[in-house]
């Protein structure tokens, strides 16, 4: 078995860019725990919007959706 998608640094970078752009993931340096919490909360928000399984983890389905061609307007108005 290959490494889990969330272990791949390229996938994490892709997810961070995506969440920053479309889900308002805050930028900047923060404590590791706070940073991980924010990342997981934003993944959950995204998974809920796309009706994926809400785990907070960067699984294959979630990565698939992040890689699809899409509109550049954020999914959450605020």
């Amino acid at each position, binding site marked *: 078995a290959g490494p889990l998608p969330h272990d791949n640094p390229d996938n994490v970078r892709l997810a961070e860019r995506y969440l920053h752009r*479309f889900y308002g993931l805050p930028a900047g340096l923060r404590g590791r725990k706070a940073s991980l919490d924010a990342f997981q909360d934003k993944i959950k928000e995204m998974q809920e919007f796309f009706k994926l399984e809400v785990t907070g983890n960067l699984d294959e389905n979630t990565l698939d959706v992040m890689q699809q*061609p*899409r*509109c*550049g*307007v*954020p999914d959450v*108005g605020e």
Partner: protein
Amino acid sequence: YNHFPRKLKWQNTNITFRIVNYTPDLKKSDVDRAIRNALNVWADVTPLTFKKLNEGIADIMISFGSKEHGDYNPFDGPNGLLAHAYPPGPGIGGDTHFDEDEHWTKDSSTYNLFIVAAHELGHALGMSHSSDPGALMYPVYSYGEGFPLAEDDIEGIQELYGPNPNHRKVKPKPDAPQKCDPMLSFDAVTELRGETIIFKDRFYWRIHPQFVEPEQTLIKNTWPSLPNKVDAAYENPEKDQVFIFSGIRMWALNGYTLVDGYPKYIHKLGLPKSVRKIDAAVHIRETGKTLLFTDEEYWSYDEASGSMDTGYPRSIETDFPGMGDEVDAAAFHYGYLYFFHEHVQYEYSYNSRKVIRVLRANSIFNC
């Protein structure tokens, strides 16, 4: 559907637009037509009217640009971000930008400008992203023919502006089917390398043994050349192929890839020309036979010889007692046939030749 915070909208119904520059991918007239048609989609269901300006400042300024293109909201080269638009307001509000690094088309190859423009102009009028995968305002690109708005989009825009007073007749796309709707029926069910694929309207669900939640996707998103409606499907695991039927045509998949040489006519299987549609199909691994259900009868296709078995068609009601005379979809697992008809699923023992259980069709989703 969703709106932007504070429900941003235009305060009058006469909106101006201007196409500031053009993509070299299409003729100027094709761009004009795509934008005008995209605006008409929204005008059809609201009191809004759109007037084109050739110079000066319009409410909606439309342009094509690459990477950083003047709004500190850069595009990213081919694929990924396709376009963006700003909600109604002064200045940049309503402005609509397309990524020039995409290849814009007027057909289903690469990115169809009309579809993307209709989505973006939805933002320019006050619509935010919808989480309904069948809605035009869903954030992921998908090509489709016909009137692009779904009921969901129409409800959203009419909440902002009201309906069209002239009651123009439109044919919206239905909302995506809900997996736990108690009246849910299926078009087709098949296995695909250990996953279960369930077709319904323009969508399919993918049930993966390692995923808790089924994944719903538009058929066209995965297989743009397949029709929007699938009648039947089955997997032949020996050939590692899934066969998909729609009307008198059939397609083959190897994994998620369409096999070359298709579509073929279903009559190549040996069905008479009078059969115009297969309702359900199921492959029985133990016997090497595929059962094809049409109206109140079924046929048996021998996969090894590639021919129809003699003595068919036979009556569904006679050979499968207890489950009515028509089938929408069928599947086979561990000696049991699962027949789907309307919102009911029949578990039928192939060996003891009787219905063992009757369930709701969507119990397959653990609803």
